[in-house]
């Protein structure tokens, strides 16, 4: 398979990372020069985020009620992932299952060596082997691309700004470090700048997250060699499937063939979401399928 690089996607990703770094550097410089007492918060949040990063796998498993399953309990799921890992040249991650009928999957962990890939029982029930493989390959691409690490590092300063927005008045109320009178004006300035930084970086991180999703979709296509499998899995999961008539049109009563899902879309919603819209992902996968065939 000769896959071309997706230069457009890579360019957008680099631009986002660059903007994020620029915003962060300016913010840190501003904090430094305003003599903010917030410097020790940097350390505090650093420790906090570090712990979150280090224990990400356990944290996520715990919040999602996911249980690690052995090869003995889920032999087929294990073997499917093992084969994908062999093709992608990854170590076999720990594998977890969440007991819910909602079809979904996620990956976490700070790197390929301590990754966890989890699926819900609903996902295994509703997808066929090819579709399941495509979803697992998408998650393994997240692992291979170290998305967990990249997004954690990217949101570090954003989190700092957020904490300043929330708590700076408490610290200000304590009179900062020296309790000088002119601090109160400074505090307001710091608060406004932090708010701005937080909003901007939040939007940038969301954009980055969406680009990572596109990259993982692409990775799934490369590993499985069948973009169409992921497309049909996404269609099933996002519940567009009912729109595709399974029955002969004659058996479907007049109107039912023309179902319309109320789609929540609009530029504002798109800005805030962590995932690109299913339609966009399907379009990208279709392009990949064409790239393969011709």
């Amino acid at each position, binding site marked *: 398979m000769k896959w071309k690089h997706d230069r457009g996607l*890579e360019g957008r990703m680099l631009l986002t990372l660059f903007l994020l770094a620029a915003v962060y550097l300016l913010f840190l410089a501003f904090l430094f020069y305003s003599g903010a007492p917030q410097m020790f918060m940097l350390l505090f949040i650093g420790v906090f985020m570090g712990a979150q990063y280090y224990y990400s796998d356990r944290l996520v498993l715990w919040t999602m009620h996911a249980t690690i399953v052995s090869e003995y309990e889920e032999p087929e799921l294990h073997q499917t992932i093992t084969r994908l890992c062999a093709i992608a040249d990854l170590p076999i991650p720990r594998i977890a299952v969440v007991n819910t009928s909602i079809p979904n999957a996620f990956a976490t962990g700070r790197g390929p060596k301590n990754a966890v890939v989890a699926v819900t029982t609903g996902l295994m029930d509703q997808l066929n082997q090819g579709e399941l493989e495509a979803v697992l390959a998408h998650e393994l691409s997240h692992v291979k691309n170290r998305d967990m690490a990249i997004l954690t590092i990217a949101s570090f300063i954003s989190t700092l700004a957020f904490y300043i927005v929330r708590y700076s008045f408490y610290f200000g109320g304590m009179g900062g470090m020296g309790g000088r009178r002119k601090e109160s004006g400074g505090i307001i300035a710091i608060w406004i700048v932090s708010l701005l930084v937080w909003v901007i970086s939040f939007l940038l991180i969301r954009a980055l997250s969406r680009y990572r999703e596109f990259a993982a979709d692409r990775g799934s296509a490369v590993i499985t060699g069948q973009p169409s499998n992921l497309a049909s899995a996404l269609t099933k999961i996002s519940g567009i499937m009912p729109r595709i008539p399974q029955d002969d049109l004659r058996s479907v009563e007049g109107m039912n063939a023309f179902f319309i899902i109320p789609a929540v879309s609009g530029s504002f919603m798109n800005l805030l979401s962590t995932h690109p819209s299913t339609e966009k992902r399907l379009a990208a996968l279709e392009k990949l399928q064409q790239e393969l065939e011709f």
Partner: protein
Amino acid sequence: MGLKGMFDSLLGRSKLPPSNTERLFAISTAVVTMEVNLNLHSSGQAGICFKSMSLSQYENTRKEIEELLSYSTQETGTNFRIEKDKYNFLWAILDDNDFEDLVTNIHMISQTLIEQGFSEQILCAVYRFESEGPVYWIYNFKQGSYYPFVPRSKQERDNSMELRLKALIENELPVEKNVEKWYPLWGMPF
């Protein structure tokens, strides 16, 4: 992980390692030592496993492999069959008491797949040996090395025997040093 790897991660590039057939032939000399020192006997079966896909180009490649096999097996007297396992992977399974012929045919199939651009989709080549039970030597094309796989009942593998085999054959066969990459293969059709 090098700088290049970091950069690829950062940009979310998915690259798969290509297949490497360089050390595939190493097993034909190691087989003597296996017989004499390890008491492992070839079962006369070997297979190559690759990911099945639904592409026209791929279907043509599959046809070509079948044609090549039927031609080459006439020469060597090898029996072959093509099978799909329950994970939707395809297997070309060969049957021949002459071990050399097995290796030659496995090599031919892998070369054909690589030439057709399916280098990344080859999972492995497998040689089956017999001891007290089946012992498989699996060639991982991504690493260009072999590793042992000794399945016992119900998803259990005999790690101690695998490690012993590695220690005894290392000098003659390029064995994968990183045991993390000794991927178990359940549900093999032979």
